[in-house]
């Protein structure tokens, strides 16, 4: 059998090229892992801001509810509806709808969210009280979507 000898050589500068390639690969991995972690942290902070804002407006809505409850407690059962409407409308940001005996108010947050509250005003022999009809969280401004009209084939006439 013939003995063949094959020489593999990286040659001059080969080591440097391999080192540079390995370093570049590791650099990319390091940069990617840091970017991923940092974007996770940014997302978590954003979620925290939104959540904190929601709980702040929730607190303000509860505060207003306490004000309305105080007013209702002070109102005598024999007082007229006009008097009741006047006292409730006196609270900042609160509107009283006479026909339905409904109180409405909104609390707006900083991050495009608001809480809209609707209360039914009821009464019994003891006096006036409220019932929470709606307590809704919604966006202040909704994004505007453009109508996309697609020309579709309508068939052969």
């Amino acid at each position, binding site marked *: 059998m013939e*003995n063949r000898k094959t020489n593999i050589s990286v*040659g001059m500068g080969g080591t440097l090229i391999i080192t540079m390639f390995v370093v570049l690969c590791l650099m990319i991995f390091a940069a990617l*892992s840091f970017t991923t*972690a940092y974007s996770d942290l940014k997302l978590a902070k954003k979620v925290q801001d939104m959540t904190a804002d929601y709980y702040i407006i929730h*607190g303000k809505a509860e505060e207003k509810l306490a004000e309305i*409850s105080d007013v209702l407690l002070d109102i005598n059962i024999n007082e007229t509806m006009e008097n009741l409407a006047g006292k409730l409308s006196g609270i900042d940001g609160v509107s009283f709808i006479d026909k339905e005996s409904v109180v409405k108010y909104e609390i707006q947050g900083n991050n495009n969210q608001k809480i809209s509250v609707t209360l039914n005003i009821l009464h019994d022999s003891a006096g006036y009280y409220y*019932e929470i009809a709606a307590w809704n969280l919604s966006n202040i401004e909704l994004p505007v979507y453009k109508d996309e009209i697609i020309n579709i084939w309508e068939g052969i006439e």
Partner: protein
Amino acid sequence: MNKVSFNPMVSLSEIILSVSIFVVAGIIMLNCFAIARYTQIRANDKAMAGAIVQSDFEIIKSFDTADEMHEFLNNSYESNSIVNNTYVYTKYYDENWNQNYIDKEYAVTVIISDKNSKSGNLVKIKISAEKEKPYNFIKKEGTEQIYSIESKRFFPVSGGFYGE
């Protein structure tokens, strides 16, 4: 038979240069990996603390009276104190966010201050999560706040129920 022999043909200066480049780049990369790891830990802590804080807040919101709220907090929180009409409840977690009184890594604190109104009880609630030791790579001393929310809850004496 085929014989394969490896002939590097590299100079000493090239090896020294390669190693020095690798060392310099390695230090930067290790730092980068370490910062990435602790940033990820911070992000995970924030997410976990947020889940716990929100969950407790929603439970508090669901109670009809302030007494029910205090009963829940007394039962589920490990330590409590009252200072100037302000209630402070604290529970502790270990590094894996399991409730643990001995291996304290994180603390969740609920601060409740009463503000009585004529028709009920308006309470100010602040829930925060803190890390007992500061994170690495961050020059801060003492506890570090991870998450905090503040709100109010009104417990009416009469009425105030949810309609259909």
